[in-house]
């Protein structure tokens, strides 16, 4: 289902270059956001005119963590990025090692299964008794979030972008769950299409041209309507989405950006909050100081969203969505992942402990254009009560509260 993944990454993410879009302050660091230098043939194919009402919106039709996998000229994985190999110690393996039954020992439920669940739901940052294999390579997709080129940073696979911040990739890149062909990725599209909560939308307003416009406003929303597939089985462009302005206010965030040669880039903005629902659970996740780099056409959007993923929220969303049963198939051990996410977290230090609470990351996204229907002002302004704690307005405070 995701066989195009690497091809898409090469096509879209590999073109990013630092073009000095803008500078913003983040913990004293300056940030440069890249924009593509060259227009693709597809972009040249549509008229350089303003979209109707100077507005265009896209519903997300694909969204997954940006994970680079090295391949040879025949497209076969070389796994150069995982010099130590892939993680072999997933949930099942760790359980078997922790509670061996070879000598006929009978473990009590409380000291085995329940204890393991406790490790997942009440994780800690202490040493991991199991080996964990991180990405060792130097190449990655993503954005240079802080404008710096550090030792821990990555370079884009085409070598054009230095200083890519994506420590989340370093953490998960050698876990089968996050790599091509994993059951987790196979379900991504199915859930995105089939679950109504997963209706993330990005709207561009004040657009004079989809090819070049130095000042556009970008707003994210959650939509209320299903995605529609066309006669070929692709997601249809031009469907209609109603904005969830009642229960979806947390998803409404505004960014400023510009379009250069058909590529939208935004300045570091507020949180990018997205809905994530699988077969049993719905959750929300967010990345801080988020920014977009999206290739645009009148009917399609494709690119990357970079930012600092809030570790607590992201981790809890993940374990809510996937039980031990599911993550076992991808050699993912939740407790171990938590430790490494916290260890590699590289931004937003907790004011009390000084430990970083967010980790640089990137999402690979695709979208189809939609006609967005905004609710009446009366509905939009309605007080809908308490916001979900995990997506509180002050995400830092939310992180602290969870500890």
């Amino acid at each position, binding site marked *: 289902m995701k066989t195009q993944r690497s091809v898409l990454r090469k096509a879209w993410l590999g073109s990013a270059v630092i073009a000095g879009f803008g500078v913003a302050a983040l913990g004293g660091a300056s940030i440069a956001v890249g924009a593509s230098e060259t227009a693709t043939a597809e972009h040249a194919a549509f008229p350089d005119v303003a979209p109707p009402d100077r507005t265009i919106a896209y519903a997300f039709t694909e969204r997954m963590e940006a994970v680079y996998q090295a391949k040879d000229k025949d497209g076969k994985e070389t796994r150069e990025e995982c010099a130590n190999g892939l993680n072999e110690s997933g949930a099942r393996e760790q359980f078997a090692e922790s509670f061996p039954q070879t000598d006929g020992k009978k473990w009590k439920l409380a000291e085995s299964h329940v204890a393991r669940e406790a490790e997942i739901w009440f994780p800690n940052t202490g040493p991991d008794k199991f080996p964990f294999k991180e990405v060792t390579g130097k190449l990655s997709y993503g954005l240079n979030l802080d404008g710096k080129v550090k030792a821990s940073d990555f370079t884009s696979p085409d070598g054009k972008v230095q200083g890519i911040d994506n420590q989340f990739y370093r953490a998960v890149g050698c876990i089968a769950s996050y790599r091509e062909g994993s059951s987790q990725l196979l379900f991504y599209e199915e859930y995105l299409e089939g679950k109504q909560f997963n209706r993330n939308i990005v709207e561009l307003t004040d657009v004079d041209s989809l090819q070049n416009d130095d000042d556009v406003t970008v707003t994210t929303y959650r939509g209320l*309507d299903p995605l*529609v597939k066309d*006669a*070929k089985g*692709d997601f*249809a462009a*031009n*469907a209609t989405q109603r904005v969830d302005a009642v229960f979806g206010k947390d998803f409404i965030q505004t960014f400023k950006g510009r379009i250069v040669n058909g590529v939208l880039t935004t300045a570091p903005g507020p949180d990018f909050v997205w809905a994530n629902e699988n077969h049993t659970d719905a959750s929300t996740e967010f990345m801080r100081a988020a920014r977009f780099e999206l290739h645009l056409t009148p009917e399609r959007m494709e690119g990357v969203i970079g930012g600092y993923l809030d570790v607590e929220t992201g981790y809890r969303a993940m374990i809510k969505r996937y039980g031990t049963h599911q993550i076992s198939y991808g050699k993912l051990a939740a407790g171990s992942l938590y430790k490494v996410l916290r260890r590699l977290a590289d931004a937003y230090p907790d004011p009390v402990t000084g430990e970083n609470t967010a980790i640089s990351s990137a999402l690979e996204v695709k979208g189809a254009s939609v006609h967005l*229907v905004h609710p009446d002002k009366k509905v939009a302004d309605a007080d809908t009560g308490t916001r979900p704690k995990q997506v509180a307005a002050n995400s830092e405070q939310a992180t602290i509260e969870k500890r």
Partner: protein
Amino acid sequence: MLAAALLVGSALGVSHSTFAEPAKDAVAADVGTSKRLRLLTTQQYVNTIQYFFGADIKVDAKFAPLTRTDGVLMAGTSVAGVSDAQIETYQKIANIVSTQVVDARHRETLFPCKPLDDKTADNACATKFLTRVIDYLYFIPPPKEHYVKMVNEAGVAAKRLNDFYAGIQVVLESVLLNPDVLLVVESEEPDPRHPGHMRLDSYSQASRLSLFLWNAAPDPALRAVANRGDLFDSKKRARVVDSMLASPRLETGVRAFFDDMFGLEGTETLSKDATVYPYFLGGIAAEAREQTLRTVVDQLLKRDGDYRDLFTSRETFMSPTLGILYGVKALPGWRAYEFPPEAHRAGILTQASFLALNSHSTRSSATLRGKALRELILCQKVPPPPANVDFSAVENPDPKLKTARQRLDLHRQNPVCAGCHKITDPMGLALENFDGAGRYRTDEKGAPIDASGSLDGKAFTDVEGLGQALHDSPILPTCLVRRAFSYATAGVVPMSADPALAQFNKTFASEGYRLRPLLKAITLNDAFSKVIEPSAAPAAEKSASIPHPEKVASNP
């Protein structure tokens, strides 16, 4: 459920004075049609069953397709045959319907009585139920012995099966298979107003009225009217027609008529190449059909508007699926929608139903669209292409020829083809701003589209101009009149009906081309109810001829 729609219609209080009264002396003595032996259409059968037993009785019927005769499918109901396979279909449906009617969920409401013992026969209760059913379903009341026979058979079956309702089910199934239910056998009788001439009998007239205006068999109230002979009294007949025109069931009848006239049944088998038209989603053809029918009902019934405005109005209805094709916002469900002027969508010819139906699966067709426009909308006959025509210029074109106009220009260099393409293409090319699925476009393969054209000497530059030319064409309303009369009488319009058609045209025009006055004029006219011998009713097709000696290619 069994409430008479006539009464409902009367309660709506449509002003009778706004309708034209029948033209008393306008009809020559030999005006009329042949008496018909008609098959019920699928939808007429479904409506008949559901109006009586309730809409929750599922009737998954699909009868054999009809033959379009002189431009009207309904005319094909009187020339259709019944095959073994069709009888098998009837039996299957009869079984399904009768089983539902007697099941535990429905018997409480559909039976007027309860058997004393539901484990055996109960002739009294069976008589009450079956009398109501037979009275409603048979187009002509059967002799009394038939009722007794049915009750007795229900009794025998109940005793054998130890179940009163099972006995009823067996007989109900046979009732639903009875030719007097599935076929409309029109009967004639001497017409005392015109000695020496014949007219349809009361039940046959009731059937024509109901099938025409409601697309269903007469309801109990109309049967009662027929029973009393009220339809032979011009004033009482007018009141009945007014009531029927005011009934909500008129919408069903009008939808069926325009579905027939515009050839929308083609949407049931319409498909497009998904790689060329990915936005022609599954189910969209049915929604396109529905969009056109909703537009018709809104304009002609709810607004009581001018028929000609159907070809210029930007107002329609939109669904989410159609919104994708049209590229517009569309909220869930069906919503009223008005295309903005810049959308270049004005009139039903610019709706997906007409555009997609009259195209190929991978490309648009100016010729098919022009042909459909001539034949369906203007009642003109476009001859089929000659057998030896060379289609290569359009089917395997020079890639340098990017637009349909360029390809057809080349095709028309063949003199065999040229003449008739002049009939269809000037109109069809005005619709080239819409691709084969009906999506708007400004160019074809990068070449700008020239949508200019002409209709019978009136030139225009775009599709809005075509719509206006149609609106202003004197042929447009006369075609509707002709089709309506043919549909109403389920047959080819005889030449002897010309005086009646002339009267209908006059009434239609004087009433602002509104539909209800036309329907009333037709149903109150002697031409609707009189019977003439076949020899006096030549089946000459009277489609307006296009004075051109050559045949037209229907394929490009």
